[in-house]
């Protein structure tokens, strides 16, 4: 497993790849906020929001199904919204007899459940699109522009830089365990207690390796003049087109949200 396998950035030359990361970041967050503000059961607005994000995926030349599929990852969490199907009061739709109890699904319950799942799916696609078209260093620039503390941005940056190294490290540990018959799949060797202890040893080992690597990195940085201050380039100004895209995007999202709130 190496860099390309784990990195979610998809290189390309589309309009969206070229758009400034600050504009993309702000628009993505605004989009997700608009989705969250759209009330339950405002189906037409959901359809329009979905069309917007699909259109953006098409414009990014990622292939229509790319984000649609990757956004399904959050679906298991929908289980958390399932009970509302039966607990919201309203006209009954169908009943499930489970042992001595009968669960009756209601219309408002179904509306709530479908809305939550749709919202989550649409928002997820926007987030997938952001990371697929923006390199992480550019995301860091976007974070600086919205005033995320510099120390935090520096930690994020360093974490991202060593993420792939340490994931490789973890995979080596697991391969070593598999080779010694302690695999988590299949027979998996001895008792669950023993397996837990072995995994704990691996976690401790990984922590130790990370800690020592961190110290080596600090030594290397100090040797190259690091004095605890993280220096960054000043942010380049946004050109007119980018500003227009930002304003236009925010405006249309605002209109859609108000439409959702007022009409439905």
């Amino acid at each position: 497993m190496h860099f390309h396998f784990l990195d979610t950035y998809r290189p390309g030359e589309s309009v969206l790849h070229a758009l400034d990361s600050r504009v993309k970041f702000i628009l993505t967050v605004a989009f997700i906020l608009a989705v969250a503000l759209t009330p339950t059961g405002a189906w037409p607005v959901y359809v329009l929001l979905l069309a917007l994000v699909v259109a953006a995926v098409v414009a990014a030349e990622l292939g229509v199904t790319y984000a649609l599929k990757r956004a399904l990852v959050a679906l298991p969490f929908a289980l958390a919204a399932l009970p509302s199907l039966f607990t919201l009061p309203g006209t009954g739709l169908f009943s499930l007899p489970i042992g001595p109890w009968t669960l009756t699904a209601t219309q408002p319950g179904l509306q709530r459940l479908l809305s939550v799942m749709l919202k989550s799916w649409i928002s997820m696609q926007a987030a997938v699109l952001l990371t697929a078209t923006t390199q992480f260093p550019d995301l860091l620039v976007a974070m600086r522009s919205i005033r995320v503390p510099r120390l935090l941005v520096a930690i994020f940056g360093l974490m991202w830089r060593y993420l792939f190294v340490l994931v490789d490290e973890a995979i080596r540990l697991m391969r070593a365990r598999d080779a010694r018959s302690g695999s988590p799949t299949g027979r998996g060797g001895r008792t669950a207690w023993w397996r837990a202890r072995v995994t704990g040893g691996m976690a401790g080992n990984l922590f130790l390796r990370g800690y020592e690597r961190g110290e080596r990195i600090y030594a290397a940085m100090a040797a190259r003049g690091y004095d605890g201050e993280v220096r960054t380039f000043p942010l380049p100004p946004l050109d007119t087109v980018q500003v227009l895209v930002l304003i236009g995007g925010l405006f249309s999202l605002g209109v859609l949200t108000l439409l959702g709130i007022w009409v439905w």
Partner: protein
Amino acid sequence: MLFAPQSVPALVGSQMHIPDGFLSVLVSLVFWLLSVIGVGVALWRAGQELDERKVPLMGVLGATIFAGQMLNFAVAGGTSGHLMGAAIAAILLGPWPAVLVMTSVVSIQALLFQDGGLLVLGANIFNMAIVGPFVAYGVYHTVLKLAREKPWGTFLGGFVAAWTSIVVAALVVALQLAFSGTSPANVSIPAMGLIHMLIGLGEGLITVGALAFLSATRRDLLGLAPGRTSRRKDRFVWLGGLLIAIALAVLSPLASGHPDGLEWVAEEKGFLDAAQDAPYEIIPDYVFPGLSNVQFATIVAGIVGTLIVFGVALGVAYLRRQRRTSTAYEA
């Protein structure tokens, strides 16, 4: 998808990372505020007492925790135990650096891998990067004190701290879902609580294993956390962590005993439906010309949406052809 061999822990783990859409805007914003305050204090404390070397160290440790979450072991029947890491971070680094490390882990998971949403990132940071380390730190040092700093106290404390941090974080998730009206409290609290009482066992065992390994190989690292409660400032954190744990232990059964209470608050205060219903009552005859029927409007929206996507696709195809012809000229 990403970690194909580890898909099961990915599923189990995702119960803790709330995706967008599951929390109401109000709840999301409130927890953003709480997280900004928490992380702000952590940054301030980091600037105050950590030396400069801790910045690279914390970045690398964030990557380590992220990688450590991939480690798993088979429990039974296809389920597996795995690590969140808040407890290990809090025990080894102390509460405030642990907050920063876990904040980076949770943020990067959301930003890069869509493990958890962006609007709800504040809530996810609160659960996993603030409540998790604080509770773990508080419980760990309580057990250590009761054990009079004997070696077995480290392991027992590690286990209980890790288990409690998972369960309490899960209860906070359940409360957030209940306040958002996504899931009724009388279902979400017992369900999340029970599931994570089991998941927490895995976390506890791995944490003990890690502490055992470190105490055998690098005992000095176990003394890394500043002060071991001897410092007065950390007493506050210690108490805070304990208080969160106790408050939730008392609050959760209460809340799940009165499910209507939470539902009532959510409905009456109108987190969800006020915006939807109010205009009808204020302007009962307010009808969009031609768009009075939701079904009809959905169809119109579908057509408009398809046109948008189709238009963009045409535009992209056109641009691509132009790009190709221009490169053809250059060649």
